[in-house]
């Protein structure tokens, strides 16, 4: 996704910033650090004078400082795309403030696009801040799984041991087992989570 936008960024004028949330880094993934990371991604190697000046003042930046610097940076950039992966891996207490900050960014810089991923329950929180957010459910895609199995079979070290019929049989059985697994695991998952 990020690579795709970066490919497009080379053809068109786009600026892309991304962040992967990770539950193992929750303490570090504060809203202020996330907004700071987006800002540093967007300024790249050309650090604006305003940021240099603020740094020289020597105090830690506040969220409001970073938001102001971000607004100024976005104004000098082509359309900005902000991608944040696994929102549900943020601390729940940080999520509302993060979404509020993103909403402020979009309000102040209307051309900005935001791409988010997360478990379905995060959708409700997103809706509170972005009533018209578009949600796309992602499920394991059979074509993706098939392509992956085919790729692994292409790399088989002894391809002569497998004729086309055997190969087709292997693909069929693996995909069959995988779809059963998904169906079989889901109720188990429900039992453990409730």
């Amino acid at each position: 996704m990020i690579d795709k936008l970066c490919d497009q960024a080379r053809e068109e004028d786009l600026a892309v910033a991304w962040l992967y949330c990770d539950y193992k880094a929750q303490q570090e993934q504060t809203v202020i650090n996330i907004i700071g990371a987006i800002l540093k991604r967007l300024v790249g190697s050309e650090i604006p004078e305003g940021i240099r000046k603020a740094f020289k003042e020597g105090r830690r930046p506040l969220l409001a400082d970073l938001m102001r610097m971000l607004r100024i940076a976005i104004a000098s950039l082509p359309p900005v795309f902000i991608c944040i992966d696994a929102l549900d891996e943020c601390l729940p207490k940080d999520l509302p403030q993060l979404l509020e900050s993103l909403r402020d960014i979009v309000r102040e810089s209307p051309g900005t696009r935001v791409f988010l991923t997360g478990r379905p329950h995060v959708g409700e929180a997103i809706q509170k801040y972005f009533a018209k957010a578009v949600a796309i459910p992602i499920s394991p895609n059979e074509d993706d799984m098939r392509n992956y199995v085919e790729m692994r079979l292409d790399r088989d070290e002894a391809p002569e041991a497998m004729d086309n019929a055997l190969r087709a049989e292997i693909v069929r059985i693996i995909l069959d087992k995988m779809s059963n697994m998904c169906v079989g695991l889901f109720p188990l998952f429900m039992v453990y989570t409730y």
Partner: protein
Amino acid sequence: MAQTTHTKPITFGNNNVNCNNTTGSYNTTVYNSDIDARIMGWLSPLEPDNRHHGVRTGRFEGVGDWLLETREFREWRGGEDGADKAVLFCSGDPGVGKTHLR
């Protein structure tokens, strides 16, 4: 695993701002000077580049291409609706491949 690498720094616009801010095929961030690196650390200790390299090398090419063809993605990407539809949210349970969408 298929691996996509950028071999040149990516630049766009007239601002000479890097999309990836990278040189070489490893997604390491290169700053002009020590002070620039300190400013970046001051802005945020998070380093999204490092994780992106891991995701990129672990991804199988073409996964999630279908998403790019959806009307929802195109409309969001095109940005015709301005701030109203600024957000696209891909939802799914753990392990369905959200992170590796291309």
